[in-house]
Structure formats: structure tokens, C-alpha cells
């Protein structure tokens, strides 16, 4: 039986993100952490999850 897949787009299996979804237990995201680097030196890293927690606890929920 001929298999025609024109309508659904078949992507090349090389898509890295698709692979990472599978070989990493929980997939991968860019986190809310931001690092600012200059001349190859990491200068400032902000961990945003900590900030969110702090702000949330500050309110009355």
C-alpha cells in the first residue's frame, strides 16, 4: 500500500527538540533564569522562580 503523507507534514527526524522531548525524562524548556554575560564571562544570573515565590508569598494569595 502506498503511503502518502503529503497532507500531514512529516518532519525530518533530526529535529533536535523532538529528540530531546524523548531522551530527556521531562523534555526541555528555557527556564525563567536569565544570565547576562559579557566577553564570555557570566556576570549576572537571576533566578526568577525564587523571585516569583517571594512575590506571591508577599500577597494575600
Amino acid at each position, binding site marked *: 500500500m502506498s503511503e502518502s503523507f503529503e497532507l500531514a507534514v512529516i518532519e525530518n527526524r533530526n*529535529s533536535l527538540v523532538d529528540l530531546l522531548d524523548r*531522551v530527556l*525524562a521531562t*523534555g526541555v524548556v528555557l527556564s525563567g533564569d536569565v544570565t547576562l554575560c559579557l566577553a564570555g564571562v557570566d556576570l549576572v544570573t537571576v533566578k526568577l522562580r525564587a523571585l516569583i515565590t517571594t512575590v506571591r508569598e508577599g500577597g494575600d494569595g
Partner: protein
Amino acid sequence: MTGSATYLYAVTRRVDGAAVAPLRGIGGAPLRVVEAGELACVVSTVGLDEFGEEPLERNLADLAWLARVAREHDAVVQALAELTTTVPLRLGAVYVDDGSAAVRVARLREAARATLDVLDGREEWGVKVYAVHPTAAAPTAPADPPSSGLEYLRRRRGELARRAVDAHALADDADAVFEDLRTVAVLARRHRPQDPALSGVKQPMLLNAAFLVGRDGRPEFHHAVDLLAQSRPDGAVVLTGPWPPYSFATLDDA
């Protein structure tokens, strides 16, 4: 950090060491078959400078390293899957030595056997569905600025509420698609929607799912995906595969 360790790629039924001889693993290292009863662990040697606990944690946050190692890992798993039914492990299953890996797999032999039976003659296909057109054109913001602070808050509340409703509708849609395709698959599993910053696709991803399909069932499954794709705008449905059955290998190692 010096020293080496054993990296486990997959578990299969007993396989001849000669079969893996032409293959190469991480860092171009040769593969070995370590027997665990009637099961086989396919392994290679890796350096602790890369795969020790701390270096590994650091490396896993480095996309360039991840890309290279994930591909090397996948190349081994793919090649094995062509030889025999394969239970792939996820990236990073590292053991002190071959013996430790074998002991671990031997302990999981019941689960491994069961998984092998489930995977026989089957393959994984991925289906990604995007919202190509946002649901219900966003109501055009009123041309005039809010007349008061209260008015501003009311409008913002309305916008957030609309967004929540839209989000629910999209989620229901995704559920429906998943259930539809599940009926023509053996097993189905959802993954987290992909981060647009990584995938490069701006449109929201509604569904990121994996389906275990028998090789005989491939035409039927593809037909179902075709029908799905036809009912949606171009490019909204993306089929990937066949994959080694990563999403359905329950033999997981920390």
C-alpha cells in the same frame, strides 16, 4: 574528575556482541553487550569528567552538549532498533561499571520482558498540532484609551478572562485530537508542548503526543493523521517518525 563509567543505551533480548561491533557510541566509543540473564545491556565507556554527577548536571544545562550527546545516544538506539526489539533508555543512565548496569537490569527483568513484549513489531510516531490561527480573532481593543482607572481594570479583567476561555477551548481541542488518534494506536502519551524559543515555531503548540503503532497498523494510523491534517489549516499538523519507542519504554533509570 578522572575515571570512567558505564553508559547504558538500551536493553534488548540477548544479542550477539558481533552485531554491535560496527556501531559507535558517545564520543565514538565502541559498544559492548553485557548479559543480564536472557537480556542484553548495550553499553559503552564514558568519562566521569563528562558524566560524573556534577559535570553531568552542568552539561545537561548546555544545549550544545545536549545536542551532541542526544544524537550520539539516538544513533545507537536507532541502530539497535533495526536489529532487534529495543527498550531504549533515556539520556544519562550511568553506572559505576558494567557489572552494576547488569545487576540493575537483572532486577528489572520482569518489567523489561513485559516492555519488550509490548514493543515487539511496533514503532513510535509523533504528532504535533499547532494553533495556526488564534482562536477567535482577538477582539480589537477599543480604540479609545480607558476613561478611568476602574475602566482599565475592567478591561484587563475581561482580557484575562477571554484568554482563559480560549485556553480552555484549545485544551479541549487538544484532548479530543489525542483521544481520536489514540483509538488507532496501541499506546499513546503526551509530552509537554515545546518551548517556542527552542523549536523556533511561534504558533502555540496545542498537542505534542507520541503514539505506539504496530508496523501493520501504520497505514491506518497515517490515514487518521491525514484526515486530521485535512480538517485543519496547512502546517497545523506535523507527523514525525518512526522513532525508537522512547516514550513507551518504562524501564527508566535515574
